[in-house]
């Protein structure tokens, strides 16, 4: 019976090296898997775009997706938008009051909502409510051979299943973003003016002076990319679902987590790009990065 648990490793240094090698290999494997998945998702998106421009989707496939993405997401986006506006007012009020700028609260709340929180909040709600459901539905269709059945009857599953979901997300997320912005502004106003007693006229004037058309455009422009990311990642996860209930569950979870991470990463890139555009158009503006 052997007593040495590491018979082939003589020195502690070797043992440390072996451990480090193992960790490096594990991380290398994660990186390779990540790049491979990103490549697969890109190819999937290209196929989807090719089908979208080559053949118009049928109304019967578009309408249920538009309803699920747009109409059914509206209440939750509106509700969370309102709460976020109120929370921003609560968090900022005391700091602003100490320097006597509480009437500027509207500017900060509205700017944060329109440029950043509105689009990210709408995208997060969409990824959680619609993205996971898309992955679960498509994953179940994969597992129960419904996608094979579609192919066997001459339908292309990307054209039939992915293109309508993509269009629903891309075309309706701007509307959801505007709803999140609006309800957030209303929530912020309500808490600041009605609850905290800030002067109504000053609050509105400051809000109007600080938030411009480009800020609104920034949020809506970003939201289109967020919607596209949610649709592509969620549909990809559904199409590549592993068999069984566990596989469907994992696909739904992965769809949300990966969409959310990609939304935040994309948010950085798009903010840098939009700021570059802003300063190209208005060079005298204050530099933000």
């Amino acid at each position, binding site marked *: 019976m052997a007593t040495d648990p*590491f018979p*082939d*490793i003589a020195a502690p240094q070797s043992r440390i090296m072996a451990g480090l090698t193992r960790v490096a290999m594990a991380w290398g494997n994660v990186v390779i898997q990540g790049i491979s998945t990103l490549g697969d998702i890109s190819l999937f998106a290209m196929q989807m775009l090719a089908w979208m421009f080559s053949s118009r989707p049928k109304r019967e496939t578009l309408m249920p997706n538009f309803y699920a993405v747009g109409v059914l997401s509206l209440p939750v986006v509106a509700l969370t938008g309102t709460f976020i506006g109120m929370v921003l007012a609560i968090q900022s009020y005391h700091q602003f009051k100490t320097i006597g700028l509480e009437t500027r609260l509207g500017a900060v709340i509205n700017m944060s909502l329109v440029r950043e929180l509105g689009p990210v909040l709408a995208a997060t709600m969409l990824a959680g409510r619609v993205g996971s459901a898309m992955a679960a539905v498509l994953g179940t269709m994969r597992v129960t*051979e419904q996608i*094979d*059945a579609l192919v066997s009857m*001459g339908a*292309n599953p990307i054209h039939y299943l992915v293109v309508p979901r993509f269009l629903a997300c891309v075309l309706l997320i701007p509307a959801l973003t505007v709803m999140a912005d609006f309800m957030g502004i209303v929530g912020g106003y309500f808490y600041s003016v009605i609850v905290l007693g800030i002067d109504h006229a000053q609050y509105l004037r400051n809000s109007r002076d600080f938030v411009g058309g480009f800020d609104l455009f920034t949020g809506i422009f970003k939201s289109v990319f967020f919607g596209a990311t949610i649709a592509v990642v969620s549909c990809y996860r559904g199409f590549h679902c592993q068999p069984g209930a566990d596989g469907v569950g994992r696909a739904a979870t992965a769809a949300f987590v990966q969409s959310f991470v990609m939304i935040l990463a994309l948010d950085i890139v798009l903010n840098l790009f939009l700021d570059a555009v802003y300063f190209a158009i208005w060079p005298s503006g204050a530099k933000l990065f």
Partner: protein
Amino acid sequence: MDDSILSQITSGTTATSEGQVVDIRQLCVQFGKQVVLKDISIRIPKGQTVAIIGESGCGKTMLLKSIAGLLAPTSGRIVFDGVDIHSLNDMDMTRLRKRFGFVFQNAALFDSMTIHQNVGFPLRQHGVPQGKQAQTMILDRLAEVGLPSNVLPKKPSQLSGGMRKRVGLARALILEPDLLLYDEPTTGLDPIMSDVINELMMRTRKRYPVTSIVVTHDMHSARKVADRIIMLYPYSRLKPGEKQILFDGTSDQLDQCPDRRVQQFVHGEAGERLMEMLSSRNNSGDLDTINLHDPIARNRKQER
């Protein structure tokens, strides 16, 4: 694409090979290093019903999906009416699929659609005008499989397993295909419903000049519906030089086959398979699942 081949795809007027409808030539299907099908060659004449039998994991369903164009083979060809189906582009393949009907193991009905929409799906997909003609076709196919018209507004989840299978058969038949592919049509059904499905398959063949390929474990079903039975064996368990097709002949010839593996399957006897499984468990135990890069696990294995 050449016009003559295009007309062959759409109309089914064969210009080829001695009335062969399906000609599988040296088909190989492999996933990574795992070989599922190797050098499979089968010719199926027009109108014949072939049952493909074999134990789980022998590649029956992979063969069926390759024939339907749902799975691209690693090598080899599948020729349907003179056309190599895996050489077709998407558009031509879509046209060709109008001539195929596929009955899936669990029916694979679309959950989000009603029975009416499910059965009518191939009609909509292939541009058959919706209206009285389509409605009549849907009702006729449902009647052929013994389903009343009151199932039309229901969703698949509201039907029993046997009814769903019959809806799947009606959907496969709606375009009156030349080739019907059945994936384990009687699995999971009670004996009476299994026989109903068998009878429906036989009636379908009498009504239409259809070529059928039936993948099944059910020997009663295979003997009843098939003109010819082909038995596949898992590639991983073949001896060197052996062919994966262990038997190819009629139901009567099946009983005379001298191969012990064929007789064991036909009579449902575990034989030495149980001992093989148990001995492989005893030899490897649960150690196969241990990560052998882990020095502690490796050391424990050496100790044993």
